[in-house]
């Protein structure tokens, strides 16, 4: 796997991105900012008034609880969406990947190049969130910088498995369901807005096996600068396992689709 050829895939993706970077950045920066204002400050004021909740949040303010999680959720949503129609488009409508496969690029290189691109694009989005976090004194820490790569890894944990899935599709009919029944529930109930021990007993372990929850925990620990070193390995390990599995799946499905 030689890097320069793989970078060509990255380049071609970047060309597409140039057309939509405005709305992507607006969403990546503006959306978390709105949630920070409405939920973090607004609902946060109500929560912090309630003395009973201080303990369940682990002694931090609701704003400090929510804000770091948005790094991970934004990475998930942005990378997840970019792995659906956009990837299918490369196989189906614009046939971008098929055109690439007609060059010396191998399907594995295409998958790897796409993965690199997902990482770049997610990094751009997550940086937007990090800037939003830096606007508020409570979350203006060096830990935010450390949390960015964690969030990018979290993005890849969704982007690669979903890209592998999209590579097997011939239409986008399953995609709204993936967003509606997969990404959205994780976003709303997966540990960003409230501690998952509030979930019903049967749902809590489900949340614990998602890469999102591990990324949220790690980002939160880093931003408020109280990481439990023992857990870092577990969190990173789970996320990395999803990334690796996703990349392997991509290799298989891209090869099957491009070189049947």
């Amino acid at each position, binding site marked *: 796997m030689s890097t320069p050829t793989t970078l060509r895939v990255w380049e071609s993706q970047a060309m597409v991105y140039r057309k*939509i970077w405005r*709305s992507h950045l*607006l*969403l990546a920066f*503006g*959306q978390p900012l*709105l*949630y920070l*204002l*409405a*939920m973090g400050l*607004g*609902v946060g*004021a*109500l*929560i912090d008034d*309630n003395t*009973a*909740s201080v303990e*369940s*949040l682990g002694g931090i303010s*609701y704003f400090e609880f929510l804000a770091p999680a948005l790094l991970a959720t934004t990475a998930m949503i942005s990378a997840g969406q970019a792995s659906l129609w956009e990837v299918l488009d490369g196989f189906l409508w614009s046939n971008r990947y098929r055109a690439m496969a007609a060059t010396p690029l191998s399907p594995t290189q295409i998958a790897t190049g796409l993965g690199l691109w997902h990482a770049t694009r997610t990094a751009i989005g997550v940086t937007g969130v990090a800037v939003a976090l830096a606007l508020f004194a409570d979350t203006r820490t060096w830990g935010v910088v450390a949390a960015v790569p964690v969030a990018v890894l979290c993005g890849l944990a969704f982007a690669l498995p979903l890209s592998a899935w999209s590579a097997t599709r011939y239409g986008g009919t399953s995609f*709204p*369901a993936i967003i*509606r*029944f997969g990404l*959205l*529930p994780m976003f*709303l*109930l997966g540990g960003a*807005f*409230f501690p998952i021990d*509030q*979930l*019903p007993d049967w749902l809590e372990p489900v949340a614990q096996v998602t890469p999102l929850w591990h990324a949220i925990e790690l980002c939160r620990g880093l931003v408020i600068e109280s990481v439990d070193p023992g857990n870092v390995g577990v969190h990173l390990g789970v996320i990395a396992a999803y990334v690796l599995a996703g990349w392997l799946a991509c290799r298989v499905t891209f090869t099957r689709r491009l070189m049947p």
Partner: protein
Amino acid sequence: MTSDVATTPDGRGVPRRSSALRILPIELFAARRPHRLVERSVMFYRRAWMLLVSGFFEPLLYLLLVQVGFATLVGDIEVGGVSYDYALFVAPALLASSAMNGAIFDATGNVFEKLRHTKLYDTVLATPMTAADVALGEILGAVLRGTLYSIAFVFTMWVMGLVGSPLIVLAVPVCMLIAFAFAAAGMAAATFMRAWSDLEYVNAVTLPLLLFSATFYPVSSYGQWSWLVQLSPLYHGVVVVRGLNLGRLEWSMLGNLAVLVALALVGLAVTARRIERLLLR
């Protein structure tokens, strides 16, 4: 036999509009059979009922977020000197928001697709149907679907123990009005869309509306900025639906409803005119 039919002195066609300052959408008086478009939607959803059912999942998630997450963390909230369970306070606001969201979703993306891609309305206008039928028909379709969702939402609230007053039954017609107003506004917006990516602008409006219409906390939390919240049409819907769930009715709610009626009329007027401009060239 055709010599006396010239329409205007200069030989041009019938002058179609006379007054410049016209708020009431008189084009709509040309509507005769808007329900035919609703019939078409029913035909479609009869086979795609999963699509209809799954549309209810999203509001359900928000209800869970409130009940499982926020209600535990916030505890009780005080409104007008009375203390209420936080979930009772937020659930009706989510009901109003989901009426808005569903209607806007139907009236922007779906309408844009039929307007520019599938050309459904070009086909429809070749029949005795009019532009007003198209505008009203699509909006009625969105309202009908919004009504179904609202009924399901109220029922779910009841199952989850989030109903505070039997008056909540009246929230269904209020939600129909909310859906009508936002469907009309959304459809007007759809006629200005040039590409799918313009949907981002629609989202850029609806998310702030959802978050800043006193949905999750009382308008008093905004302090001196509360007048800003009043500019959100959704806020006026939230006030009424919340009042119904908490069993607190006030005369000022008539004013809130009037705001929604006004939005509906403006949206209708713009839509009917734009559809005619776009399709009857």
